[in-house]
C-alpha cells in the first residue's frame, strides 16, 4: 500500500494559529482511522516485523516515563511482543543493538535464558552487551 495516497489532514491543522488538545486528539484519531481503512490492522499484523514495530512504538510511548520494571514489562503491548514468541527474539536483539531499552524481561520470558552475570544486574550497557553476545552465539544476530 502506498501511504502517500492516504489523505493528510496535516495541512489544515498547520494553518491554525492555535490547536486545542481536543483538536490534537481528533487529528490522531482521524489519522488512525485513515490508516486502518487503507491498510487494516489484521493485514498489517500478519507481518511480525510490522506488528513488533507497532507494539514497540506503543510500549515506548506509554512507559518511557516509568521506573517500575514490573509496570514497564506488564504493559499490554510488551506482553503482546512476548506473545509473538521466538520470531520476536531477532527483532528485539536488532532493536537493542540500535538503542538499549528494557527488553531483558521479554528475552528471558521467550528464550528461558538469562546470560547477564549477577554483578551486571541493572547495568543497562552490560546487560545489553550480554544479550547481544548471546544473540550472536545463538545466530539470532550476525
Amino acid at each position: 500500500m502506498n501511504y502517500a495516497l492516504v489523505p493528510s489532514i496535516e495541512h489544515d491543522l498547520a494553518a491554525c494559529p492555535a490547536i486545542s488538545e481536543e483538536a490534537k486528539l481528533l487529528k490522531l484519531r482521524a489519522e488512525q482511522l485513515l490508516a486502518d481503512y487503507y491498510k487494516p490492522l489484521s493485514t498489517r499484523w500478519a507481518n511480525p516485523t510490522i506488528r513488533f514495530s507497532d507494539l514497540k512504538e506503543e510500549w515506548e510511548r506509554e512507559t518511557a516515563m516509568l521506573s517500575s520494571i514490573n509496570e514497564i514489562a506488564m504493559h499490554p503491548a510488551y506482553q503482546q511482543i512476548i506473545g509473538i514468541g521466538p520470531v520476536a527474539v531477532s527483532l528485539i536483539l536488532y532493536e537493542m543493538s540500535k538503542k538499549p531499552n528494557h527488553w531483558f524481561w521479554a528475552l528471558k520470558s521467550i528464550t528461558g535464558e538469562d546470560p547477564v552475570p549477577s554483578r551486571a544486574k541493572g547495568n543497562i550497557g552490560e546487560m545489553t552487551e550480554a544479550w547481544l553476545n548471546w544473540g550472536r552465539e545463538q545466530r539470532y544476530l550476525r
Partner: protein
Amino acid sequence: MPTLVELFPNLQEKGYDLTSPETPFYNCIAWAAGDTSRWWWPDYNDQYYWPPAIPRYENLQAFILLFKNMGYSVCEDTEYEDCFEKIAIYVDDLTGKPTHAARQVAYGRWTSKLGSLVDIEHDINGVSGRRYGSIAAIMKRPKA
C-alpha cells in the same frame, strides 16, 4: 512521544529545568541515591539492581528501608534545610506501590529522573498526579 507537560501537567504551574539528556541507563531511585550507572528496582524477575540487604518488594516499606540503609530517616516536611539532604518517595494513589523518588537540591527545588527520559529540576508538586501519584514519605539525612 508526549511532551513533559502533557505527561506531568503540574509542571506547567511553576515550570521546570532540563538537566540531562534522555538515557535508559539509570532511573529515579538510582538518581536519588546518587548512582548514574545502574537502574534500581525490585523487579519480580530479579534482573535489575536492588541492594541485597533490602527486601525485594515493590512496596513503600521496602523503599523506606532502602533509603534508611543510606542514612536517611523519615521526616515530616519538605522545607529546605541547609544541613540536610531530603528525598521524597511517591506512590500510586490506587495501589500504594512506589512509582518515583525525587531528591531535594538547593533553594528547595527537587531533581527527578523521569523513567528512561530526562532529569529535571522542579517544584515538589511538579511530578505528582496521574503518572506518579502522590508523595507518601519524606526522608532526610545530614549533609556530608
